């Protein structure tokens, strides 16, 4: 039994402390945004924010995450709403600007990696609201435990979407 703070809600789960956070999120909490890609922190498909930093939930144990704030793809809209001080009603209707940009740029193809891509973009834009292309490439390649990999080859669309998201965030909508 452990307690975990996910997407702003404190929850009790039955899993043992050595269980990778990914399986806790997906199987115990039905938070299905993070995907199993490699189990080795080599691809980024399972990424979540832990204390605002991108982490690979496939190699992060429940015990390690227990005392920190975890945000999954499902929690991005509320995270944005809280940062912008939106009302509960507004918050329900909104997506995170990163998600909006991902749709407007038609970024995903199969989409299996894009959970991690949107988590990485959120981490980047929260610390650097107007990144250059070089900074975006650096963020998605060398800033984490491994590059965030996309097999469909959507890197151009991701770069376009990050820049688009930066514009949306600057407008504050």
């Amino acid at each position, binding site marked *: 039994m452990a307690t975990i703070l996910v997407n702003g809600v404190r929850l009790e789960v039955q*899993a*043992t402390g*050595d*269980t*990778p956070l990914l*399986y806790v999120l*997906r*199987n115990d909490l039905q938070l*299905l*945004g993070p*995907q*199993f*890609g*490699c*189990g*080795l922190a*080599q*691809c980024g*498909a399972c990424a979540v924010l832990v204390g605002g930093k991108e982490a690979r939930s496939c190699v992060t144990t429940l015990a390690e995450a227990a005392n920190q704030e975890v945000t*999954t*793809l*499902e929690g991005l809209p509320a995270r944005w709403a809280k940062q912008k001080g939106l009302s509960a009603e507004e918050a329900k209707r909104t*997506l995170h600007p990163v*998600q909006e940009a*991902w*749709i407007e740029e*038609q*970024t*995903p*193809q*199969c*989409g*299996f*990696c*894009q*959970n991690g891509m*949107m988590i990485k973009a959120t981490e980047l834009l929260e610390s650097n609201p107007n990144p250059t292309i070089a900074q*975006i*490439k*650096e963020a*998605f*390649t*060398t800033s984490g435990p*491994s*590059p*965030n*990999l*996309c*097999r*469909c*080859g*959507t*890197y*151009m*669309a*991701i*770069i376009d979407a990050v820049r688009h998201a930066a514009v949306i965030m600057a407008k504050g909508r």
Partner: protein
Amino acid sequence: MATVSKKAVNVYGATLSRRQFVKAGGALVVGVSLVGPEVLKAGRPRAAMMKNTLDPTLVSSWIEIHPDNTVLIRTGKNDFGQGSTFTAYRQIVAEELSVPFEWITTVVAGDTDRTPDGSGAFDFLGHGTPNIRKAAAYTYQALLDVASERLGVAKDKLRGRDGVVSGAGKSVSYGDLVKEQQLKLTIPVKGELTSIFGLTIEGNPPMKPVSEYTIIGKSYPSSIISSKVAAKETWATDVRLPGMLQARMVHPKTLGSTLVSVGQLDKNKFPNSKVIVKGNLVGVVAPTEWEAIQASQHVAEGTKWTDWKGLPDSAKIYDYLRKEADWTTTPATKSDASKGDVSPVLASAHKKFSATYQLSYMKHAPIGPTMAVADVAPDGTVHIHTHNQNPQALRGEIAMMLGTTPDQVIVHAYPGPGHYGRSNGGNAGAEDEAVILSQAVGKPVRVQWMRADDMQWSTQSPAAFSDVQLAIDEKGKLVGYQVDHYMPAMQDDRPIGAVIAGLPTMPAPEVASKSVTSTVNGIADPWVYGTVPNLMERGHGTFQVGQKASPLAVGIRDHSMRTPGQFQQNFPRELAISEAAALAGVDAIQFRIDNANEERLIGALKAVREASGWDTRPSPRSDARSTGSTPVSGRGVSAMLRSGTYWACVCQIAVNPSTGAIVVEKYTIAVDPGIIVNPAQLKRQVEGGAVMGISHALLEEATFDESGITVEDWSSYPILNMADIPEIKVVLLNNPKVGRYGGGSEAANALAAPAIAAALHDATGKVNRRLPLKAAYVQAALKA
């Protein structure tokens, strides 16, 4: 209350009938009826009539038009990121029906009990659109027939526009036409539902003239992208059934190992786990995923297998293929384009050369390892939840494995990680294992492969080599070209778990196998240099490497992968053509134009020349250099005709001769698919293909030793990351006069390799005819 129709109406060979009047609701539904010799053969299951198959008499089929002016469409093609079912298919149906795009509110794809036609998730706009387009065209005609009766206006005076039929001063909306009645349009189809190509709509209903298009050609967004981004889509990975157990597989030690003894399970550590053994197949089930993972690792450590060394090492693969593989049992093929007599031209040529080109095995390498959920009920009904590219074909494979009939098997299709052709012949890899385990434990079972399972137990894109000879005359024109392509069987559709378990499957690829699963190596890269007078293109096939020697009949299994076969044939041709241009002392783009007569190819070459800022001159560059540690730059070109689409690509690279490291700096591509259905979607597809192609060209090689595949993760099988992508420029050439939609997802991935290899020659003066162009290989080649 039910009232049978007055009289059925013949709609260009389809049949429109009124089933009954209903108090509320109503619909026009479009069903199927089998025609042709298939229905006459006794004993053959009548695909469209099988139980658990979409029945044309039910209120569910190709297309439904509802009284509230909404439209539902269904297709057997399960989308894997191409986007076509959620954009192009809706646009094509909306266009042929003359309804607003937004009316098409629902797209049902893939499920074997909810979609009519089967077939694989490939060639959406080539092989795929005739079905959905014809279904819509038939429906439009039927709507005019119904409106004619309703309005009392002759059919030829009526026209549909924005979902309203009008003529002679009268009008009625489509929704009102179907209100309170159950209209059924039965359209003729033929084919086999569970074959790789599924059912095909027959007949020739009139199509809307291209000049009247208002929806095709616009960039509508894909509806499934929104749900994926918002974490609202249900993926195959998300399926959880009541009582479901989690499972991991313990695959054999080698590609030819048989089981000696299975490891014991420590019941103290894993009290709820269970080991299931079927033949040589070992699986571990547990209530939680984490226990299944740990217990399976524990069992794997204690499990004993026979040793097997029946493969050539990948370092020796080309020697093996050249000298030891059996190229005589399988008849050689010859392209339809072959003409003239190459031999005398080669003998007397002004200039000539011959060379061999080699391509390594590659992995499809989906970002998520394959998985599936199966539920085998006590009555023998099987439900499978998966992310495969051909649910109907999988249905047939599972039925064969279980010795039952396809009507006992229902496949539910969901989005999953793209795997680029790997499951277009049916199974994605884990469905059969989930069925075997579910049958054993009497509960639903979810099998999830780990990363190493996916790298080592899935199929690969086959290695290949080609021998080219060509001749150039005094004027620098190509006068003779001969190629012999060698490639092992490209498509093994056997479910691997069934093979390991010793259960029935289709045979391993052999000469007599049906179409794509045969060892026969057909010519997949259409010749495009039309003015060349003497041409000989031959294809030579053989069995999969190690398959006959493996006690499991496994070996290195192959499967078609994006631009299958054509990639293996286009790389040799396009690099050879660039080499020929250099030999002739002619610019590589101009040389292609000089030897071509197809206007669309020439158009694509000119477009890519302009867009890339190409400086017209022969290769290699005058100051080419194969030594030194400062980078030297070069550029190369490639071209292809695939699935009705003409492509031309230019890559600009910088190579460090001392390390062999290549950086692709700029990738420019021009594409003429005929009618462009959705420009924004096509552009994104081409960009993705470009990135995958650069990854293929520079990095990808599925290595193996004498026992099995040795790549196991993203470290041993690296793919391109974001930092290494070039500037990418896509030029879309809309060409409505072609009158058809060409494909756009494939080909961009194949065009990078020959263009980069030609650029390496341009930069260094040396040719590297082997893929991938890994730094170590390039370094060695430059020193040679």
